[in-house]
């Protein structure tokens, strides 16, 4: 009895999705999900016995009354136009957003402590998150999990675009997996290969979800939500005409994680129905169809829990050989980019360009910008134009910055006309910082985090809204509420802005210069005050002295 109860309470799933692209590039997305039927926020009782769920994160959730936690560390920038939409988007650098439970009284205090604890857990500099880079978006970041909290007082969002992601962040991340990197798909996560990719992102998403079994019994769900932790790694590797698991990760798969209830590898073969484009070996009879990001895709499935997957060699080394070339990738329907315009070090202009590539449908998007206080936005210069016509946002939420206390927050709901480009511009002035506020390398410039574009994009095919059906993890991360559209979040490039930077040896030069000036002035003044004047025998001019010399020789009386 005890065994079955305990076994049913938490489960672990792992999967790897590989999407080959025509350029020979590979998009590999690892997802590990632990589902635990428990309530961290229950009053009085402390959850303290962990099996598959990582203890360190569980303690964080219960101590800080966290309802949802999303954290990502990304190296590189995801090029949506060339690579398509990622399954789970993330901005360059570190991003952290947290929904606190509504019983928390001191949200800012909890947030501060939480960032410090997380920076310890992930070996990252999240402790640099403070009130000057934290915002409370009113509409862009809704809880992804259960419950429809709308009071954004309990939401905190911060990005650190400068954060550099490296091996030291991957090691603690791998420790959160029940099997570590000893078995299952995680054996492929070797840092020397992963960090050679053009794009690398690792994320942890924790949220309350409803259980599969009583998915429709809402009363029961609200009583006891189960917590789901999603650990994902996306990486984008550049390879040539042929790739294999061994070539990509310098490992092959030999077993599933023994604790996982499902362990699968998906390879996207949508563009290759008859095998004319590439050849995939070993061949698998298992095919799966899923609707992902508004598109119906076909996948070859390798189920690692079955012994026959590994064949005689007892190892699975997927091999893909390109045969032909051609075929166009489906252009993403939503795309955004951003840049800084202007010249000089005083003023500038931020341009955000959002593209709607849908041929005939208009749809609204939520644009969120969080700009540090040292770029002083002139909000009256805000213009939104699409198709060279003024496009009035239907909703604007603007919170002005306070110097050294909080950043600007600008949120807008913009209707994008079909097949159009919408440009949002706003002018700013650069502030002069105090000399201790400059970063160690100030001439490099200051980062401004990505803008976030969130939208429900009209889908070409009907999305599946059935939660009860077993879906691959990558397609069910964001819950789909209606069939006709799907949720997409697009991050733009972070900006690098130069601020007027002083010469840092200046203070000493100034001290020396002023001291010298003061000393010279003082010296002459002092001399005048204290010098005493005495009558001196005026000495004879040179001509007279010479004359006297001659006179002395001649014996004539001297001149005076």
């Amino acid at each position, binding site marked *: 009895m*005890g065994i079955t109860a305990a076994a049913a309470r938490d489960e672990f799933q792992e999967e790897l999705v590989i999407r080959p692209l025509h350029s020979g590039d590979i998009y590999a997305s690892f997802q590990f999900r632990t589902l635990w039927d428990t309530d961290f926020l229950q009053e009085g009782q*402390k959850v303290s016995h962990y099996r598959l769920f990582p203890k*360190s994160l569980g303690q964080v959730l219960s101590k*800080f009354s966290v309802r949802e936690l999303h954290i990502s560390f990304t190296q590189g920038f995801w090029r949506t136009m060339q690579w398509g939409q990622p399954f789970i988007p993330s901005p360059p650098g570190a991003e952290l957003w947290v929904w606190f439970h509504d019983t928390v009284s001191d949200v800012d205090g909890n947030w501060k402590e939480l960032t410090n604890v997380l920076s310890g857990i992930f070996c990252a500099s999240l402790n640099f998150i403070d009130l000057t880079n934290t915002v409370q978006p009113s509409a862009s970041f809704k809880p992804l999990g259960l419950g429809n909290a709308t009071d954004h007082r309990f939401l905190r969002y911060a990005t650190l675009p400068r954060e550099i992601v490296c091996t030291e962040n991957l090691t603690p991340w791998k420790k959160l997996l029940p099997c570590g990197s000893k078995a299952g798909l995680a054996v492929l996560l070797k840092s020397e290969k992963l960090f050679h990719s053009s794009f690398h992102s690792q994320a942890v998403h924790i949220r309350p979800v409803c259980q599969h079994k009583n998915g429709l019994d809402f009363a029961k769900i609200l009583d006891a939500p189960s917590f789901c932790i999603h650990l994902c790694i996306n990486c984008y590797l550049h390879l040539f005409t042929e790739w294999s698991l061994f070539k990509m990760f310098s490992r092959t798969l030999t077993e599933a994680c023994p604790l996982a209830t499902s362990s699968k590898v998906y390879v996207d073969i949508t563009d290759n129905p008859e095998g004319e484009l590439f050849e995939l070996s070993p061949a698998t009879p298992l095919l799966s169809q899923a609707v992902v990001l508004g598109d119906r895709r076909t996948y070859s499935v390798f189920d690692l829990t079955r012994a026959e997957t590994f064949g005689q060699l007892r190892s699975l080394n997927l091999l893909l050989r390109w045969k032909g070339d051609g075929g166009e990738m489906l252009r993403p329907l939503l795309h955004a980019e951003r840049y800084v315009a202007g010249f000089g070090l005083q003023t500038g202009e931020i341009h955000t360009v959002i593209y709607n590539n849908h041929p005939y449908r208009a749809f609204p998007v939520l644009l969120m910008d969080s700009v540090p206080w040292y770029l002083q936005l002139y909000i009256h210069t805000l213009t939104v134009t699409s198709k060279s016509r003024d496009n009035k946002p239907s909703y604007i939420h603007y919170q002005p910055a306070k110097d050294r206390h909080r950043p600007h927050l600008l949120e807008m709901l913009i209707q994008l006309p079909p097949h159009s480009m919408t440009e949002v511009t706003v002018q700013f002035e650069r502030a002069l910082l105090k000399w201790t506020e400059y970063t160690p390398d100030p001439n490099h410039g200051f980062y401004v985090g990505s803008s976030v574009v969130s939208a429900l994009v009209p889908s070409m095919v009907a999305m599946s809204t059935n939660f009860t059906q077993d879906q691959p993890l990558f397609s069910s991360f964001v819950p789909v509420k209606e069939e006709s559209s799907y949720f997409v979040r697009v991050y733009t490039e972070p900006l690098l802005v130069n601020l007027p930077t002083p010469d840092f040896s200046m203070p000493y030069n100034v001290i020396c210069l002023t001291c010298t000036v003061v000393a010279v002035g003082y010296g002459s003044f002092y001399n005048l*005050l*204290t010098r*005493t004047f*005495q*009558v001196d025998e005026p000495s004879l001019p040179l001509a007279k002295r010479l004359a006297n010399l001659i006179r002395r020789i001649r014996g004539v009386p001297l001149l005076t």
Partner: protein
Amino acid sequence: MDNSPKTENSLTIYPFVVPNLLISYCCILVMPEKQRGRYAALAIAAVVIVVGIPLWWKTTETYRAWLPFSEISELDSLQLQLSVDIEVVFSRGTLTPEQQKKFPLSHVNEKEHQVDVSIPELLTSPSTEADLSLHMLSESSCGSVVVYVIPESSTLLPEDVKVYVGQRRTALLRSPPFKTSWNLKEVLSNLDVEVEQVVSTMSFGHQDIVAALSNRVRMTKVTKESMADSMRAIKSSPGYEITFSLLNPDPKSHSLHWDIEGAVQSYIQPLLNKLAPIANFSVDSQILYYAVLGVNPRFDNSVSAYTLSADSLSHVINPVEARLGSNAASSNPVLNFLLYVPDAHHSPLFIRDHSKRKVPSNAFHSPRWGGIMVYNVNEMYGPEAERPVDININMAKVMGVFLAQLRLMLGVQHTHPPTGFVLQSPGSAGLADWELDRLLWSRSVENIATASTTITSLAQLLDQIGNIVINDNIAQQVSSAVTSLQSAVAELEAGNLAFALQYSREAILASERAFFDPSLLHLLYFPDDQKFAIYIPLFLPMCVPIVLSLLKIVSEAKKRRADKQAKSD
């Protein structure tokens, strides 16, 4: 302008006068002119010394709040006086009516403890009758001891038992033969030796106090055993995290299940509830897969089992510890208890002690860190069993070992009662009241010692480095630590153990807060050469003329005096 510049007022105009004009006056004004220059130089020097230097001093000084240095230095030579309330109750038939008349009487007995460590045999015959009678007696306050003196001929205790110590704070003492002619004082002084033995068993002995002060005083005459005891016990802290980890290095063959929740409820929680006055405890557990020990066990053919020798145990912990993870949500010390189930290929695994014998519990502990137990499961399934094998862990067996280790870590030491003493077993809570008292006594002393060490070293540090800013908040923490310490000492003296412990905990908290305050770190340490470099461009050109003119004035004054002397001669 053409006024004769005799007054001080007109003198100041001089800098603006054309030199030519001056020269014409020179012959008349030689003496006043010289005088004026001298006065001006002296005045400027005076301004610099009276206004400039104090102003510079005041504006560059660091803020240092007042600290009670004198009281802190008193703490350095702290004298603790511990007093125990002992109530001696004579049961009917022990005293003659004349002796009874003289009740009540309080009798203060101050003595230095000199406890001999002897190794007595533990008598394992608790007399239930005696315990029952003790239970019925009234509850006594924390830290006190009640001694019931029963007649020599009483059958309550077995023949050879002199003293019986119950689960509470009470003891039964078989009275030695009294002479009926003795008055009460004589009776009591006759009981002194026994009472003292009882107290050193139930409250504290010399060794306990020395061990508690071990980080304060250099230990000289301490037995190896009590030294080991004090090293083993985790240091006093306001809270502890207890973590149970199940290490399963081979999840492919073993699917382990442990009812840790129930086990903690039934075995650990009663003890922790009892210890609640000492510290806050939080318990959690985790299962770690693919966690291996740091050493490869050696296969021993003679017993056909793998063995870990005592020497290799020190290498076991480090690799595991990287997986354990610290508690992210608190900074209290962590006590780790690891249950290691060896993988199928390395089973069974036994731990051997230094004399190469199998350790019966198959467990060991690391001082102040925690314990590790090896749990062999190879006998629970046959070779044909389907992998992974479901295995339920026998929590009673495991928790028995962990509970014993936990008692050691928490410093519940084995007492060594003198011969003729019987100790009642602690019962379901795992801890008798008087054992708790012993712990409270040594913890209070230890807390006081630690807090006073912290405060004195902080005061020393602040005294030595003059650049550190001392904020009001730190000063307040320091003085509250000092007052708490003083009240703790006073309460110990008065015998109020519970209050003494509470004050000593407050003292330790306040002293740690002051010591680790981040504001002490932001000291504006500019090296002296940098300060010199900043000051030189201003101070050198300013000071040189002043010093030179002062020198000149002095030398002139000397010359004049010499002239005068020559004239008078």
